[in-house]
């Protein structure tokens, strides 16, 4: 089954996605065909992609192709190595779930025509796959830009709402600024040879100064796509604006493309690694993670909350990559492989659980029409399926064992424990601070996730209309179930994914974890040695299950054993209504107090004499006022100065051409004597 070179199959899948997209144009408004046939077909293509890339990873074949398309002299160079295959695997697996969900999710008459959505969606998938197999800067940038454009159109699916258009504009603007930085980075990497293939870039030995310049441009460019500080501002705007499957795809997969691009440049194309790069990346990553998680705890919109949580996870990813870079620069390749494995594992884990969570918000949004946490609540009784699936995502996202998020965070903390081996003493002093921040981030992430789950699904419904909420449809359930299943597998059998990560770290840093990790059985992961550290999710699960069963039995036998229903957390009140429950604002209040200096708070407190008291608090990002608004004002000022040239009088315009003509004539050689 599926024999032949894997890269041919990848090209076939890309072709299939493009074909499905164009078929969507043909069946522009035939909703049934587009939703019930085309989207599942796209999911099937994703499934094929996942199998192919898994096979390519285990067989270890690296293949290249040159496609005779594009400009003359500038053909598409394609290459599928282990790094590409790993990300293709993530793309394929995630796509299956999201496509199935989309088939049931998109409704008639919501903004863009269904056929157009189908085109944009599959174009988006195809360009992401092309980014991963591109082997020269030209085809990479082409795929990168078409990825940005198609996702822009998906974000602005409901383009009649001005706020959504503004969010789309912000996203597109930052994406383009980032793309310029990536192009500059490639420009440095080709070292004036004029040959933009990655094969040529690998051969160039550029000076440390220019290598650092290329590295910094790469951080800026890929960071803009991934959402690291201070280029994160588009994420919390774009995600609430986009339809939920699109948010899932963007947050789960697209921002991982930035991680891929960064790994490609930092570990593959650059021939040297300098220690301060790792420190810079570590600092940026931790700042981003801390910032993201603190903002996530105070959000009142469920999709914004998840968007900030994505920022946090990207921060963790970059911190792990920074650590890998640091180890690599000192030639400690085993430890570098450990940190890199943590980062790649988190790529997989986050892709699955964050997509799952965004999809559940989509179901909630359809069932209730509300995104505001202050108007949701108690959905566990009306949407049991969605609640259960969301709980899996929440547990993985909070980094609790035995779920997938725990494995990567555990691996990351393990690699931090090895930093005392670093030869620089001041690094040895700084890195424990970083490790402590990671632990803080993990704890706060749990806090934010408890808030998300508790406010949306538990308690009593805060609005009457919530009682009419219905559970997700069959296709939606299937899509979410797939992602939940994958999350559980990643959590319970970490060695399963480690087998696929091993070839990647082998080519990037020359070492891998899989052999030592599996040495003591498939159920146990031991990143370095059994004496040092080990973790077995199966044992853990059994332990938890046993303890719970024991407690249950003991309570049933020795306590009175009667079943009693009473309002939870009623706080001693005789009766309780929905307005008295803990709200999203109330739950986030302690964090808002502790980290007040992080926020730009606008608080409106009611005065005692007001007849209709109103309490309002708006949490703003300090980067808006501190960084983006000044830049916008400077841009506006310069534009206004240039605008003075435009007088609206033809005589003035004619005078401009007249003067230009005179000056140009003066420049004719021989006139100025």
């Amino acid at each position, binding site marked *: 089954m599926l024999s032949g070179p894997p890269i041919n199959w990848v090209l076939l899948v890309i072709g299939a996605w493009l074909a499905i997209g164009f078929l969507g144009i043909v069946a522009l408004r035939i909703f049934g065909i587009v939703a019930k046939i085309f989207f599942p077909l796209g999911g099937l293509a994703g499934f094929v992609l996942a199998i192919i890339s898994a096979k390519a990873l285990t067989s270890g074949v690296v293949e290249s192709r040159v496609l005779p398309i594009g400009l003359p002299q500038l053909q598409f160079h394609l290459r599928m190595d282990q790094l590409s295959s790993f990300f293709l695997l993530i793309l394929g697996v995630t796509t299956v779930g999201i496509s199935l969900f989309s088939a049931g999710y998109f409704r008639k008459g919501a903004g863009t025509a269904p056929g157009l959505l189908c085109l944009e969606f599959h174009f988006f998938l195809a360009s992401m796959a092309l980014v991963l197999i591109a082997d020269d800067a030209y085809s990479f940038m082409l795929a990168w830009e078409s990825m940005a454009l198609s996702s822009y159109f998906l974000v602005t699916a409901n383009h009649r709402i001005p706020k959504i258009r503004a969010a789309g504009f912000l996203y597109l603007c930052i994406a383009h600024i980032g793309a310029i930085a990536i192009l500059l980075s490639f420009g440095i990497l080709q070292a004036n040879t004029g040959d933009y293939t990655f094969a040529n870039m690998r051969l160039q030995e550029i000076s440390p100064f220019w290598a650092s310049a290329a590295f910094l441009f790469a951080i800026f460019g890929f960071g803009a796509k991934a959402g690291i500080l201070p280029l994160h501002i588009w994420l919390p705007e774009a995600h609430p604006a986009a339809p939920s499957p699109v948010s899932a795809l963007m947050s789960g997969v697209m921002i991982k493309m930035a991680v891929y691009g960064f790994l490609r440049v930092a570990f593959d194309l650059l021939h040297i690694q300098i220690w301060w790069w790792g420190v810079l990346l570590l600092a940026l990553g931790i700042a981003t993670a801390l910032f993201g998680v603190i903002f996530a705890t105070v959000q009142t919109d469920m999709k914004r909350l998840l968007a900030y949580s994505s920022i946090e996870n990207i921060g963790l990813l970059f911190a792990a990559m920074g650590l890998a870079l640091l180890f690599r620069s000192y030639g400690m390749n085993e430890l570098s492989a450990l940190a890199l494995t943590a980062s790649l594992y988190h790529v997989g884990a986050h892709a699955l659980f964050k997509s799952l969570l965004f999809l559940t918000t989509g179901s909630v949004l359809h069932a209730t029409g509300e995104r505001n946490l202050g108007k949701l609540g108690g959905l566990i009784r009306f949407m049991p399926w969605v609640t259960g699936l969301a709980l899996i995502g929440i547990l993985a996202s909070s980094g609790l064992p035995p779920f997938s998020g725990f494995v990567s965070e555990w691996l990351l903390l393990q690699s931090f424990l090895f930093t005392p081996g670093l030869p620089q003493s001041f690094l040895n002093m700084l890195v424990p601070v970083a490790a402590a921040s990671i632990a803080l981030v993990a704890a706060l992430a749990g806090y934010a996730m408890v808030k998300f789950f508790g406010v949306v699904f538990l308690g009593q419904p805060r609005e009457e209309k919530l009682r009419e909420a219905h559970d997700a449809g069959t296709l939606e359930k299937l899509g979410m179930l797939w992602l939940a299943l994958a999350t559980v597998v990643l959590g319970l059998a970490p060695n399963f994914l480690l087998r696929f990560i091993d070839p990647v770290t082998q080519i990037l840093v020359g070492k891998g974890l899989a052999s030592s990790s599996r040495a003591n059985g498939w159920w146990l992961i031991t990143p370095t040695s059994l004496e040092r550290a080990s973790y077995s999710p199966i044992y853990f699960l059994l332990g938890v299950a046993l303890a719970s069963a024991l407690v249950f039995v003991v309570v049933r036998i020795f306590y009175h054993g009667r079943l009693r229903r009473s309002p939870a957390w009623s706080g001693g009140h005789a009766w309780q209504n929905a307005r008295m429950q803990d709200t999203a604002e109330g739950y986030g209040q302690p964090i808002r107090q502790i980290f007040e200096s992080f926020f730009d708070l606008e608080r409106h407190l009611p005065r005692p004499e007001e007849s209709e008291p109103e309490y309002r608090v708006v949490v703003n990002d300090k980067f808006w006022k501190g960084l983006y608004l000044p830049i916008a004002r400077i841009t506006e000022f310069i534009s206004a100065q240039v605008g003075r040239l435009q007088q*609206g009088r033809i005589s003035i315009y004619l005078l401009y051409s007249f003067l230009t003509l005179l000056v140009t004539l003066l420049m004719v050689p021989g006139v100025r004597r």
Partner: protein
Amino acid sequence: MSSISIQLINLFAAFLLLLAFAMLVQRRIINLVHMYALQGLTVVAATSVVAYVTNQEHLYYTAAITLVLKVFFIPWILHRLIKRLNVRWEIETLINIPSTMLVGIVVVVFAFNLALPVSKLSSSVSPGTLGIALACFLLSFMMMITRSKAIPQVISFLSMENALVFAATSATYGMPMVVELGIALDVLVGVFILGLFMFQISEQFESLDISHLESLKEE
């Protein structure tokens, strides 16, 4: 080339420069049209002299086309336009006439200085002709800047084109026939389009004063 023909061409060139200044200061639109026709006639005469002297047959065709187009047809169209739009009145300039004249003199000096090194390169060109052609071109351009009504601007555009043709024929003894035909066609089409625009402008704003276009400026 005989000295009399050079004298003739120089005479026509001087006449052209005089006409350019006259157009710069002329206030009445109807007189502007007459002067434009006269300018065209001068160009025709200069072209014929060059054609006779150099024995180039196609320059006669050029002269004939210029005669039909620029001496009879376009002035006739402009006359009709003026009648239809009823814009015989005196035109106000944006800058007063004496200062326009002064700037014009500076422009002529500049043009002569500019033409000097160019004409030195070529033996066939009399140094004055190219300078005058360039000066006429720049003066017409200036006229376009200083006028506030649409029709005088069109006329100055057309007289710019006359100066170009004069430069081409008198200074370098003609361009290929195809180029000349192309230019002639361009002018014809340009006049039609500009005429159409003028009707639209006068209908929209009930005036041909182009200062009304200022309201189109982006705020």
